[in-house]
């Protein structure tokens, strides 16, 4: 179909080649050490296609004030909570997958060859440049496809495991493929992935958010699978074939067979590679039981390596330490690890991040003694110019080290050093995935809250939250504690809106903790901050109301998540915060009465532990003419049987009547007189007094009187 355009394509290639030749020639001149006029330009440095882009990118640091660039830069589309971050990124990827599905499903429609379309031979036509393979439809292999060995090569090169197995079967299986090298590379593919389709590299977000897919440390090798069959069918088993199958088995913890094959190969005099021995070293734990036997086997294997004349490399060290750290803790293993590291140092092999990760696992046990090896490790790593990732477990280092800083050593200085190391250069890619990143920051923020200065903590929080990291409820509690200790009322008021934005405002315990913190540092705040705190408190109660309504609506559909009630203490805290106003007309009084109503209707869990707060509030309310609120509070106290009810009602009456306390008490002896002279709403206070006096915890009497006082209080409020 495209035969008629081969010539122009070739021609353009030829011109391109000519151009490149001429440019090379042009560049050759300066390379001669000295020219006649004494000017010697530096020799040409070969640049890759993305070098300029990388140089440009290195001029811009990370911007913590903006959302990650995978999110769309629009206020409506920027996620602010963990849930949203995950949901948005994954939905974008779902859309991408939908498009890819359409492309593959209707591959016949996506055959436009933009880079060299047919029928464009007559006019000079400039093809889209460069041709991007990722945008071309994938071949789909099914039972009807006719395939060649080229297809098998292609699928193997692109690590399309299931496709390659299909093609292999279509080619006639083990007997069908004659090419030894092709068979070997197919065997390598099978061994590496254990005949399981790997997660596609294309779906980055899925990999990033696939929380905690820790590979199981169990013998997952498929016994008698295709790999085994292919290996058995190889008539001439070379060293490469042995290395492949042994490494595959060792990687998937089929230790016994791997060791058997290893012995077989050694007996036959087939040389094995260093990586094969590395794999074997990594799975000793599956071969032997008991520490002493395992240590012996480890030493034996290392000796065997020496016999074979193999030099160990960094990976050897890593797999030794991996084995040792998996066998538990204890002095013996720690010493062994130390010995091994020293010996490798002598050989000039520096431990990598994975080795250090295993070392941390070995030394810093949760309940073990505090051993500070992290500072030594950090000093070593800081000296290195660049941390080069070599192993998948490299990404475990930073999270584990930060965990050690936070739980084991509780040292903020080390944490800061570690964070500086992570932020240095290109190291941030070693943070792992979303799950590891969030744990890393959880540890970091926790240790900062507990041990860093307040200024440093707030600075850290301002840079990290919310774009880099959104605190989980436990971390938020830690933050609230820190803010409370420092007395930062402004930030506490902000913390409430953060709770709402982060989607954790329905965590009752957290909200209660926040209210308590607000109450504790309310007194010594300036007036405008006090107002902010009051606003936050009234917001908290309104937020509850809103969800109540929603629940009533939602109840018809499903009643899966019963809303937890705020405790009575929280209500008392709200009352205490919001009653601190100077004016009768302040809207905060509505919040107070709402809180009291909830207390009265038993909508708050438990009873307040500090009833004095309510008693004090009653007096303030009475002094401002909010008699209804005062009466409700006193009545509630009396109904609950608090002994503060009686003196409080006497004092409140004193405030209402503007008389000293003794006078009120004498007046209270003659009930009738007072009832005649008093304002109806003040009568409710009187009721509360008598209720408290009679020790009226009987609910019947209380409810009957309270309903009366309800009416009265409501009328008085209207006045």
């Amino acid at each position, binding site marked *: 179909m495209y035969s008629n355009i081969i010539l122009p394509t070739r021609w353009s290639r030829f011109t391109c080649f000519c151009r490149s030749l001429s440019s090379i020639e042009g560049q050759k001149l300066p390379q001669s050490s000295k020219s006649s006029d004494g000017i010697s330009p530096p020799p040409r440095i070969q640049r890759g296609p993305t070098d300029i882009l990388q140089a440009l990118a290195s001029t811009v640091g990370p911007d913590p004030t903006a959302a990650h660039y995978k999110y769309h830069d629009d206020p409506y*589309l920027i996620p602010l909570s963990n849930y*949203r971050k995950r949901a948005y990124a994954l*939905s974008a990827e779902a*859309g991408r997958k939908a*498009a890819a599905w359409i492309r593959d499903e209707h591959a016949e429609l996506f055959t436009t060859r933009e880079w060299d379309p047919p029928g464009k031979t007559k006019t000079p036509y400039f093809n889209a440049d460069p041709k991007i393979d990722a945008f071309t439809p994938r071949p789909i292999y099914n039972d009807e496809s006719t395939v060649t060995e080229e297809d098998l090569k292609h699928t193997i090169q692109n690590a399309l495991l299931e496709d390659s197995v299909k093609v292999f079967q279509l080619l006639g299986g083990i007997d069908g493929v004659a090419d030894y090298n092709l068979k070997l590379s197919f065997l390598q593919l099978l061994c590496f992935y254990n005949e399981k389709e790997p997660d596609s590299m294309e779906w980055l977000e899925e990999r990033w958010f696939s929380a905690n897919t820790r590979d199981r440390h169990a013998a997952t090798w498929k016994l008698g699978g295709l790999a085994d069959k292919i290996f058995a069918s190889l008539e001439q088993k070379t060293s490469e074939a042995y290395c492949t199958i042994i490494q595959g088995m060792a990687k998937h913890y089929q230790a016994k067979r791997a060791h058997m094959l290893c012995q077989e190969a050694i007996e036959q005099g087939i040389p094995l590679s260093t990586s094969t021995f590395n794999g074997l070293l990594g799975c000793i734990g599956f071969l032997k039981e008991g520490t002493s036997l395992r240590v012996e086997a480890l030493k034996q294997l290392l000796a065997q390596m020496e016999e074979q004349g193999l030099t160990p490399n960094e990976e050897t060290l890593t797999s030794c330490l991996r084995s040792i750290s998996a066998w538990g803790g204890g002095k013996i293993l720690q010493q062994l690890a130390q010995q091994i590291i020293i010996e490798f140092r002598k050989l000039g092999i520096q431990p990598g991040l994975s080795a250090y990760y295993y070392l941390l696992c070995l030394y810093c046990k949760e309940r073990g003694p505090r051993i500070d090896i992290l500072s030594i490790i950090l000093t070593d790593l800081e000296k290195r110019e660049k941390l080069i990732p070599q192993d998948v477990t490299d990404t475990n280092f930073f999270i584990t080290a930060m965990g050690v800083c936070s739980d084991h050593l509780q040292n903020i200085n080390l944490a800061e050093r570690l964070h500086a190391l992570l932020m240095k250069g290109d190291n941030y890619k070693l943070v792992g995935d979303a799950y590891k990143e969030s744990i890393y920051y959880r540890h970091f923020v926790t240790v900062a809250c507990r041990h860093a200065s307040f200024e440093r903590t707030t600075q850290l929080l301002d840079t990290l939250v919310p774009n880099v990291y959104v605190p989980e409820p436990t971390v938020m509690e830690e933050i609230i504690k820190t803010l409370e200790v420092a007395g930062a009322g402004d930030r506490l008021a902000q913390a409430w809106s953060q709770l709402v934005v982060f989607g954790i405002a329905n965590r009752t315990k957290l909200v209660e903790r926040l209210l308590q913190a607000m109450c504790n540092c309310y007194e010594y705040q300036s007036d405008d901050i006090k107002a902010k705190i009051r606003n936050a408190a009234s917001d908290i109660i309104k937020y509850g109301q809103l969800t109540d309504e929603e629940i009533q609506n939602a109840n018809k559909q499903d009643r899966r998540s019963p809303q937890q009630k705020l405790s009575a203490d929280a209500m008392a805290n709200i009352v205490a915060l919001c009653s601190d106003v100077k004016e009768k007309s302040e809207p905060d009084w509505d919040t107070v009465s709402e809180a009291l109503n909830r207390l009265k209707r038993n909508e708050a869990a438990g009873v307040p532990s500090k009833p004095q707060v309510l008693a004090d509030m009653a007096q303030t309310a009475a002094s401002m003419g909010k008699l209804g609120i005062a009466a409700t509070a006193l009545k509630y106290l009396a109904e609950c049987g608090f002994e503060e009810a009686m003196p409080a009602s006497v004092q409140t009456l004193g405030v209402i009547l503007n008389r000293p306390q003794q006078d009120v008490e004498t007046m209270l002896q003659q009930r009738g007189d007072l009832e005649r002279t008093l304002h109806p709403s003040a009568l409710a206070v009187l009721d509360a007094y008598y209720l408290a006096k009679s020790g009226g915890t009987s609910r019947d009497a209380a409810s009957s009187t309270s309903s009366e006082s309800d009416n009265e209080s409501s009328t008085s409020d209207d006045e």
Partner: protein
Amino acid sequence: MNSSLVKLAQVHSYCKVTKLYNQIRIFTYLFSNLLLFQNCLTSKPPLVQWASIAASQIHTSAPMCRVVSGKYRITKKRDRPLTYEMANPPHYIAHRKSWNSWNTSSLKDGLRRSETALEDEFIRRFMTGTWHGLTCSEIIVKRQFNHIRVAAIVRRAVSPTKMYFLLGYTEELLSNWLQCPVTLELQTVDSFKDVVFKYI
């Protein structure tokens, strides 16, 4: 209310397209007539003719000088909503508003002229169809190297999650179709009213 406005806007954009189309048809009709006429006069092959006419830049549409394309007629009730882009007639391009397609194909020795125009139209239709009833503005197509950036203003009528799905879908499908990276640069507004500049 909103949906009706959007519908109105869409109808108007269709009107605009048909107007443009008519204009082009008339233009080509005149042009071909002229060609025929010249062919009668001389015996040169037609292709040379074509080239000479293109070079001489005769404004063949002069008799139809009443410019109607890209302009909107005032309604009786003065209730036709116009965005800023619609409110400014074409002669304000580069003065008050800018182009809807950004590329270098129309420069001297520009590449892929017709392909670019066609692809841009395809992108516009794909966007309005995929973001159905959501696009509130013209779709701006900007090309840089082999990278196409598509900008638009959309309504916040669907949840952000759905928007992200559409974003990913549009980007991936367009880049597979056009064989080059495509990036969407969207802005969101609360309702179509937010982009209405005036009513005529």
